[in-house]
């Protein structure tokens, strides 16, 4: 690659105007991959209703190549964690993630999937799926509107096109994540320290 002629973006655009398209195989593959992200057909709570809405005629996720919701994790590229992840459900969500083939992407949709949302201080809700699964895109909202989901999907497509590694590949757990056990008082472990560490907060002394 090092002795390949260097072509700037403006030169490439100029060639394109004249009907010549220059690209690399990797770029082509990334472009194709970004336009055919197949999400897992899987919903957890009210965010799933917005996700269904995004897939129907009015919002039409098919415009972005993601209409093929797969009922099997073996055929899916994208896990949209759409809703509240209860502690009882968390091992199953992580199991689905582990069954998806690489490269795979995770979107945490809505306040609950990001942090536990309004149920954060409850006894039965996981305080964010990113404690177990590396997340690529966070979509805030309660629930996020379908437009927000589409925006998140476009952000993910930009990420794929740029050739950046997935959050999973960058994390300490590429491929498989730790599936927690049901303990006597909580999930065990209650979080995966290799994936998630509490962000450092600098606070005043008062």
């Amino acid at each position, binding site marked *: 690659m090092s002795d390949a002629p260097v072509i700037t973006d403006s030169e490439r655009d100029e060639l394109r105007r004249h009907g010549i398209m220059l690209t690399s195989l990797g770029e082509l593959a990334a472009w194709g991959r970004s336009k055919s992200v197949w999400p897992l057909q899987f919903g957890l709570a009210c965010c799933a209703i917005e996700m269904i809405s995004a897939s129907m005629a009015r919002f039409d996720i098919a415009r972005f190549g993601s209409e093929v919701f797969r009922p099997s994790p073996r055929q899916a590229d994208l896990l949209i964690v759409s809703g509240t992840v209860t502690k*009882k459900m968390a091992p199953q969500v992580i199991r689905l993630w582990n069954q998806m083939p690489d490269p795979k992407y995770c979107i945490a949709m809505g306040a609950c999937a*990001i*942090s536990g949302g309004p149920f954060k*201080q409850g*006894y*039965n809700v996981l*305080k964010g799926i990113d404690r177990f699964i590396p997340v690529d895109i*966070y979509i805030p909202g309660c629930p996020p509107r379908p437009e927000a989901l589409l925006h998140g999907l476009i952000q993910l497509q930009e990420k794929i096109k740029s050739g950046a590694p997935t959050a999973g590949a960058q994390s300490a757990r590429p491929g498989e994540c730790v599936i927690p056990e*049901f*303990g*006597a*008082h*909580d999930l065990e472990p*209650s*979080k995966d320290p290799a994936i998630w560490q*509490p*962000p*450092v*907060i*600098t*606070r*005043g*002394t*008062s």
Partner: protein
Amino acid sequence: MQTPEQIRDRLLARFPGAGVTFVANPGASAQHSLLLAASEARAIAEFLRDDPELALDTCSNVTGVDWPEKEIVETIKKNVPDPAGGPDKVVEEKMKKTQPGCLEVIYHLYSMSRKQGPVVIRLRTGNRTDNVTLPSLTPVWRACDFQEREVYDLFGIVFAGHPDLRRILMWDGFKDHPMRKDYVDPDDFEWEPTPHDDVLERAKEHYPAAPVTAAPTASPTPEGKA
């Protein structure tokens, strides 16, 4: 529709010596209820369902209440005669009493056939620790099945005679009863960007030790999620 007092009187006439107590609701709704003794509860429930005048054929809601042990201070005023012969002095004596705790289960009953209701009945356990068994009313109203399981799951009331008493919301190996007042949830308060009240107290235990020489700064500045 008969009032709860009338129902109580009918029950006492039908079941002499049964423990049926009228519990008034002082709130605006004035939805009074009947407290039943656990031993006769099943027979009374069957009577409420089969009685042609009440015909309470539907149990719409089962819920639980945790009444923890409570210390009550009673103030008693006493007149103490003045030895000098003056008027009596009023002395206030404070008595501390411990009201024992219990767990309570509440059933809301309606009649579909006679279009009336609700009649609210309550059952109470002996205490909150080892005497927590109550008769199940699932054989009387089938609708109680899942709701009694939920009360068992979250409050720890054991329903004797329930056909399938398992946890319904939490997993089987779970040991606690989260809706009890003394439930302590697991200590995962290490990341609370906007803590307040009780959560703030729990979150403070995870704060790094403050540097000794640091000058006091303004309000906490939570940073965005990484």
